[in-house]
């Protein structure tokens, strides 16, 4: 039975927002431990590797974080997509997602450009894996990409509220709804439930969830309180 489970292909795709948050919160070991119990692979895309490793390695204040993520790649904890998906096709799909998402929300006749290559690449990869019937989750801590996928209408309302102007949605983004999003906070929850967090204080789960929230995970206080009770 265990062997059968191991043979099922499944992936977690990591966006830079989740990786950066977990690394800056000292969860390097937790990522390794989670990978050990995960019956599949953790993936990193080329644009996310550039943002989390190649570029920050040249900036002193981020170099240590970048080196730790690079180590996760060297250890095989984070796998590059080379042998998993056709890179040129991923590039094509990524450009398609960026073109659509960045021409969806309009203020008067001006499209609002909202997402970039790293985020789009994670979404494109998830869609490609879905198309091949391969189970996957996408870990994204930042808010906008998640709103684009799960509730673009809320993003429209947010724009309207913040920009004090009428905002129109001119594209149908329903095809993105098949992408299943998690955040670092859900990964921390699993780590806690599986006994991977070595802090045994009764408030440890709440503490790690807030640490990730203050590190940039888009999660509300209410969600943290519900998660704590699960």
């Amino acid at each position: 039975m265990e062997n059968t489970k191991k043979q099922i292909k499944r992936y977690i795709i990591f966006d830079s927002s989740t990786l950066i948050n977990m690394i800056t919160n000292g969860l390097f070991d937790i990522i390794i431990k989670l990978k050990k119990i995960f019956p599949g692979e953790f993936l990193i895309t080329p644009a996310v590797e550039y943002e989390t490793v190649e570029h920050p390695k040249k900036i002193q204040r981020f170099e240590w974080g970048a080196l730790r993520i690079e180590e996760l790649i060297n250890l095989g904890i984070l796998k590059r997509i080379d042998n998993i998906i056709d890179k040129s096709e991923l590039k094509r799909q990524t450009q398609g997602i960026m073109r659509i998402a960045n021409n969806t929300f309009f203020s008067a006749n001006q499209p609002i450009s909202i997402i970039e290559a790293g985020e789009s690449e994670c979404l494109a990869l998830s869609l490609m894996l879905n198309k091949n019937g391969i189970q996957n989750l996408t870990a994204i801590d930042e808010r906008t990409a998640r709103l684009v996928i799960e509730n673009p209408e809320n993003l429209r309302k947010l724009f309207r509220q913040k920009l004090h102007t009428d905002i129109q949605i001119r594209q149908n983004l329903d095809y993105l709804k098949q992408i299943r999003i998690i955040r670092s906070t859900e990964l921390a929850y699993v780590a806690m439930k599986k006994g991977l967090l070595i802090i045994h204080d009764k408030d440890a789960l709440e503490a790690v969830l807030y640490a990730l929230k203050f590190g940039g995970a888009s999660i509300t206080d209410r969600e943290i309180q519900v998660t704590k009770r699960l």
Partner: protein
Amino acid sequence: MLEKEHILSLVSNALKAIKTENIGKIKELSNQTVHSASIYQDPDNIAIAVILYALSKLIERRERIDLAGWNEFINFYVKSLERAFIALKKDDIELYREQINSIESKINMLSSNLKSYVEDVFRKAQINKGSRIYEHGISIEKTAKILGLSVWDLSQYIGQTQIQDLSLTYTKDIKKRIEDIEQAFN
């Protein structure tokens, strides 16, 4: 340049506020650009927002900082803004940009202590503007690109704000999200 008139009015009002050292007004003017910066993402607009915010911080700290070359630098900063304003009024956008860029070039020529202090003020001004643009609904990666920052710069700052707590950011039952991840790990 997409919003010449807006930038003209901004710099004109900022110069008046600088004369009276009205720091709150300079900050307010800098924030006025955030709406249009989120929509148009015009580099000229974003540059002036950062320049004004950084200047407000530098003037605010004037009394507390005892670094050689401080006053000369602030005077150069304000003079550059005045020259940029005149250039823009004459529709000379190239000269306007030269004057704005001269502030950055000047920073590179400062003594090492003052240089690192001013660079830090500028980086924080960029992060401040970035967090405001992110707050308006632009993704973290896009915002970082607009400001010329790293995603690492913004991640930590954004987490310290109340941006994540807006009810509009709640998109899916947390129990369902936990169910998804638990299934994946089984």
